[in-house]
């Protein structure tokens, strides 16, 4: 397939995955209203989305309303609305590589996004708007899973989605990492901590999953383990890297066995996650581990591009 097509599909999937993560991030921040410091909660959401500095340039203070609007719309290039527009540009550039269902999901989403007005991002209507965003992302995922031929195009789409998800999970965990560190002074197991850890779980839609896996009260190391190492969690780094290596292996197969640095890197990260222990991660430092993951996700993206998209 054309290198440009691989690039467009990869980024299309990343943008469609990103809007889902942004919507969950906003929902998690909202759920903390009245429980903890709102400003701190929204700052961490902005940081997880990687737009906290941009936000500070545009606003002098953080209010839930302005932060939510910034993440959804407005001047922020990574806002939900802009991600949808970028997804459509990529989809349109390579329409021939998309199935009709995929295109219609993206195009319909884009058409609907264009009629959204200020009021759709107001506190009263926002939950409904975010539901729509998550449904859009799910519709897209459903469209490619059910309609795409299992050819290179499909593996590039899945690869983009998995890499984006790994990056988002690492970011969400990282901005909340201080919450996950056991704190003696504030009394572990207190009401506030409980809400905050739950909000982390909510951001990756894993509140129920936690109960199924651990059957005990929310504990920080469990949350970290679940999101980094557990293969059952579809948003854990482990799951994401299992998918990434699967996609890269399939691509190597269809390219006559040709492999590159991206294959080595992804394999090495996947092995670490597979054999890693949460106690070792806490010993190294959770923040340090996650920072390395965020950097490596970026580097891996570059290496994939080097091999297939130039």
């Amino acid at each position: 397939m054309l290198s440009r097509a691989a690039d467009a599909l990869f980024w299309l999937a990343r943008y469609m995955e990103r809007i889902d993560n942004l919507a969950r991030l906003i929902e998690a921040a909202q759920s903390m209203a009245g429980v903890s410091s709102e400003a701190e909660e929204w700052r961490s959401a902005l940081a997880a989305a990687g737009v906290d500095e941009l936000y500070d340039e545009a606003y002098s203070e953080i209010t839930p309303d302005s932060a939510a609007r910034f993440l959804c719309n407005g001047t922020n290039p990574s806002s939900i609305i802009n991600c949808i527009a970028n997804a459509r540009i990529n989809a349109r550039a390579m329409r021939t590589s998309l199935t009709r269902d995929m295109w219609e999901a993206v195009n319909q989403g884009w058409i609907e996004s264009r009629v959204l007005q200020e009021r759709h991002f107001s506190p009263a209507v926002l939950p409904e708007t975010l539901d729509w965003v998550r449904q859009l992302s799910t519709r897209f995922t459903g469209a490619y899973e059910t309609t795409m031929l299992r050819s290179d195009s499909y593996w590039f789409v899945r690869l983009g989605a998995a890499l984006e998800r790994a990056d988002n999970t690492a970011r969400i965990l990282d901005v909340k990492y201080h919450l996950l560190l056991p704190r003696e002074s504030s009394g572990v197991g207190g009401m506030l901590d409980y809400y905050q850890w739950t909000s982390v779980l909510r951001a990756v839609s894993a509140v129920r999953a936690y109960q199924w896996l651990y059957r005990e009260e929310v504990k920080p190391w469990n949350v970290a383990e679940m999101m980094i190492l557990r293969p059952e969690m579809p948003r854990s780094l482990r799951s994401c890297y299992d998918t990434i290596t699967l996609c890269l292996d399939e691509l190597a197969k269809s390219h006559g066995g040709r492999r590159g640095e991206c294959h080595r890197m992804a394999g090495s990260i996947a092995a670490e996650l597979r054999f890693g222990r949460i106690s070792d991660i806490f010993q190294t430092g959770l923040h340090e581990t996650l920072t390395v993951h965020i950097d490596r996700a970026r580097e891996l993206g570059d290496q994939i591009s080097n091999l297939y998209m130039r």
Partner: protein
Amino acid sequence: MRNFFDEMHGADGELRPAYAAIAQWLAETPPEVLQTKREEAERLFRRVGITFAVYSEGGSDTERLIPFDIIPRVLDADEWGLLERGLKQRVAALNRFLTDAYGPREIVKAGIFSNEHIDTHPAYCKQMQGVAVPGGIYTHIAGIDLVRTGVNDFYVLEDNCRTPSGVSYMLENRAVMMRLFPELFARVGVAPVARYPQDLLATLRSLSPADDEEPCVVVLTPGQYNSAYYEHSFLADEMGVELAEGQDLLVVGKHVYMRTTAGPKRVHVIYRRIDDDFLDPLVFRPDSALGVPGLMEAYREGHVALANAPGAGLADDKAIYMHVPEMIRFYLGEEPILKNVPTWDCANEGALAYVLDHLEELVVKETRGSGGYGMLVGPHANKKTRDAFAKKLRRNPSAYVAQPTLALSTCPTFAGEEAAARHVDLRPFVLSGANGVRIVPGGLTRVALQDGSLVVNSSQGGGTKDTWVLHTNGNGKGAR
């Protein structure tokens, strides 16, 4: 008020057999239902993204739908048979002319054209002189614009040999009609058009310079901001070939390759939807980033086929158009089947004088113009407009030709509450490959949606209709 030939009611108001089923359907379908269906059609078009881009007007909504009319335009089998023979003949002559103009120039020796007439032409491509093109075909995909004035009176208005567009509308219009009105198709025997992409692919593959390899065909597009981008992607998709931009192709050792995830892959045939000027910055416009450096050399060496051939636009000019009937006699030794509209070439002094005297009854067009811009429709213009145009005309007469205003036929068209007569034209598409000529029964019918308007261009308020070619000459009952 002039009398127009109406394709449903003829000139005398009597229902023509080809439209019997349509008339019955219109009589039994309430306007509200038609209105609902019209809205549904628009939703379908928008969801699929069949839009064309409009940038000149500013504003944020740069993607427009061409209005679609849900009442089909019908041609019976005999009418189509006549058109088909006429189109084959005309395109054969045009291809012979192009091969001749870029080759031995027999037509100049015969005194029909002068060398100057050809050489000074803006669409003449001097880089193509003496280049042997595959199969002697320049225009592999031709769109011939036809109008009708009577039962058997079809005129060619314009030949589009360069890169005609619109075929995606022909296909999508049919798909939408079949989805909206399946019961109507069950009643009437309509010839299918869906095989066009396969015909196009077969035509393109026939041009491949490599006998020993599976031909690799690509569609070359200027990109998603081009107004016809939807069509480019649609055709590539329907044919199952790559949709490439200039940046995706490269020339190495006079062969063309595309950049793929598995490295460079050889390309044999390029259906290019970018203009001559932008094809290759080494040969044409050096500032063009849309094309492929070295493409023309690979083409001249015969390592890649281009459809349509560079320079094919020479035949589109209205000053060349005038002579197509002579070309048909000269190259084919046949009498033209399709009529040409009488045309006065204002470069000629006698003709200019006549045109200036009869401005109120003529249509004056720029020789190189297209899209309905820069023309004067004499009968619809006031004296002031005509006088202003006469001035332009005197200043640069050779830039204009004039034609009588034709009494364009009308078709029933849904005008909000009921079906009303609106003027139409027709663009069928003629495919010429090394292995023969193919024409899908139908084409793109454009309709002037304004009451009384003769301008069907989508850029000026025109719409489109599905075009039905019947298997029979009756109302289709009992047809297969």
